[in-house]
């Protein structure tokens, strides 16, 4: 019969429409604005409407998500910040759009370079969020952040991030990337354990 194909298509659309309400009734209050509701709406057996009502609801980002980089600092005994960065410059060399600018600090007495940055700038308008800086840093000093809500009104002043804006504590890094952090700490512990036995033997 002519028109049967159109009727079948309309039936598919109708089914999608009705099943949204059925799912709403089935889930009740837990469907919207709850974490389990969001998970249900991104699982592989979702039916019906799958919109996440941003900004009231936010999709949890996976651990591997990369947005802008940030510098990691260890907190010292009296709250002092010890940046892990040694200003080796590998992140600046490997950055594809060349958005990282580093100035090495020189020791004021001897004038030789010391392994910490005097200035560290990232131009976030240029940053491609590729993650190479974090991937190739040998000191785990720069990592990719999860924060994507960084819109501002003034591009010229606010979009070049300096050390103040970039530095975040190790505890923050451990909270956003727990498995990576655990692997790195295990590797560090193993290396320092190996060094201790070496120095004890030698």
């Amino acid at each position, binding site marked *: 019969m*002519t*028109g*049967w*194909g*159109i009727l*079948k*298509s309309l039936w*598919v*659309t109708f089914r*999608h429409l009705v099943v949204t309400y059925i799912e709403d009734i089935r889930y009740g209050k837990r469907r919207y604005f709850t974490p389990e509701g969001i998970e249900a709406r*991104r699982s*592989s*057996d*979702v039916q019906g409407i*799958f919109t996440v009502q941003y900004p009231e609801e936010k999709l949890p*980002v*996976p*651990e*591997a*998500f*990369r947005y802008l980089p940030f510098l990691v600092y260890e907190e010292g005994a009296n709250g002092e910040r010890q940046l892990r960065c040694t*200003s080796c*410059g*590998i992140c*600046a*060399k*490997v*950055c*594809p759009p*060349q958005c*990282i*600018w*580093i*100035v*090495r600090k020189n020791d004021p007495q001897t004038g030789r370079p010391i392994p910490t940055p005097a*200035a560290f*700038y990232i*131009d976030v308008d240029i940053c*491609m*969020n*590729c*993650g*190479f800086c974090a*991937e*190739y840093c040998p000191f785990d000093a720069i990592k*990719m952040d999860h924060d994507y809500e960084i819109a501002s009104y003034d591009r*010229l002043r606010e979009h*070049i991030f300096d050390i103040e804006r970039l530095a975040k504590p190790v505890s923050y890094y451990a909270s956003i990337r727990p498995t990576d952090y655990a692997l790195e700490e295990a590797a560090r512990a193993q290396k320092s354990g190996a060094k201790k036995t070496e120095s004890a033997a030698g």
Partner: protein
Amino acid sequence: MSESALKIAQIPDLTLLFPDKVRPDTRPGYQGYIVEREHLLEVVRLLRDEYGYDYLSSVTGVDYLPEGKMEVVYHLYKTLGGPALVLKAQMPREDARVPSLVSLYRGAEFQEREAWDLLGIRFEGHPDLRRILMWEGFAGFPLRKDWREPYFEEEAKPFKSRWPEGFVFRAEDRNPFGDNVQYPPGFDPESWTPADDEAIYRALKRATDQDDLHADTLVVNLGPQHPSTHGVFRMVVSLVEETILDLKPVMGYLHRNHEKIGERNTFLQNMPFTDRLDYLCSMSNNFGYALAVEKLMGIKPPERAEYIRVMMAELTRFLNHIFAIGFLLNDLGAYFTPALYAIEERELILDIFEAVSGSRMMCNYFRFGGVARDVSDDILEKVRRLVNDRLPRKVDEMDEFLTRNEIVRERCEGVGILTAEQAIANSASGPVLRASGVPYDVRRAEPYSIYDRLEFDVAVRYHGDIYDRYLIRLDEMRQSLRILQQVLRDIPEGPIMTGKPQYQVRVPPGEAYGRVEGPKGELGFYVVSNGKPNPWRYHVRAPSFINLTSLADMARGNKVADVVAILGSIDIVLGEVDR
């Protein structure tokens, strides 16, 4: 076997056939033959007519400034399958002319225009040699080695100003115009008036007066700002009433000088830039580039990495095809409903890409020798649940939803027909070629990665109209699911990278052409290295760009309302067309 069949079955040795006109390319790391440019047409005609090399895949130019030479590199293939026959024509830089191959292969048309536009190589005998990616009034040839782009800092990255100098500045502040603009010397922007698109309009066919009936031709510009052109793309059509007489595509509105940036980047730094070519299918682009550089380096990734790569490539193919079907229906006028059903499936796959690589679209996941990060077991579990349960159901639902729909059939059957001979001559590739009856798939013709071990069928359809291009995408989605099920069943444990991850890759000198069967067609990367950390020449053979050669053939004789649907059925992405 007859003599002609015997000739087609073998790979000819050109030094025996043309002893004084062709010599092998003996530079270290290079393949193929160097042809004298006066004899180029003769050699290629013999190869096409008698030896079965009917598919010209890629035409590209290279600037060898230190030797004072320009070179045009041709990659010829047989539609029966097999490796490439690489021909090169060399010429001095001051006198960069070479005969055009458009009379033998129509598909060379846009690529030769690109070589003229970007490198200044003149192709004699080309029917319409105009600039294609730059605008008509542009002065200079950007890809030449002595041409410097507006924000030029140094010949190759990394720049010294970032480290150890490090005093940050914005590039716009350095440019006196505060803008990305560079005028040739002696040019006065105040007094210059732009010329009209005279050349394009003159090149269109007009109606002739026949049978005492006066036919009025109307020239219409579709685009560049148009909701249905899949990006900034312009089509200039000449119409008689509503029927199309001729169509000329105009592209270059999204040209980002990707190839020149590629020459400034190191090999590794180019990987995130390849994500942005065909921005919907970033894993596929990464795959092609990784293959090309791995060919130069002579390394192969370990087994687990190969399986992960194929899994990502096939997931990309699935999400591209379902998106293409959704947007074809959008172009037909079924506003956004099928597109949003397609986008829902895409969202689930993009969530997997985000969990694996860190980003939904700009994945930057492949590295030379493997992949960047391992895939954990719960992600594999998610992929299994999708591939075994949800996605086959959804393909069947799209099929039930759209295939028998009378409106889709009325508007798509018999519209935009591309015959097999036209498709091969136009160097069409991917679903466009296979829907016209030519079963050419790079995964079978010249298998790469582990595709020679996987069982899948090459989808073919024989009518070559829009409906067949829609059906073949459904077929390919089903074959992709079949491949994914095999990959998920057989994926081994093991390392994901050959050697240690390093940011300074050592690439020996030579050339390589790495191609993959991308979702839009044959995506090829031609990389020339001279041993330095950054490539000497980096060219992308973009399938959408070359498939657009067939647009004029498909559109002639149809109505204006069909052009939008025909463009949707070719499935182009402007990031790839313009680079």
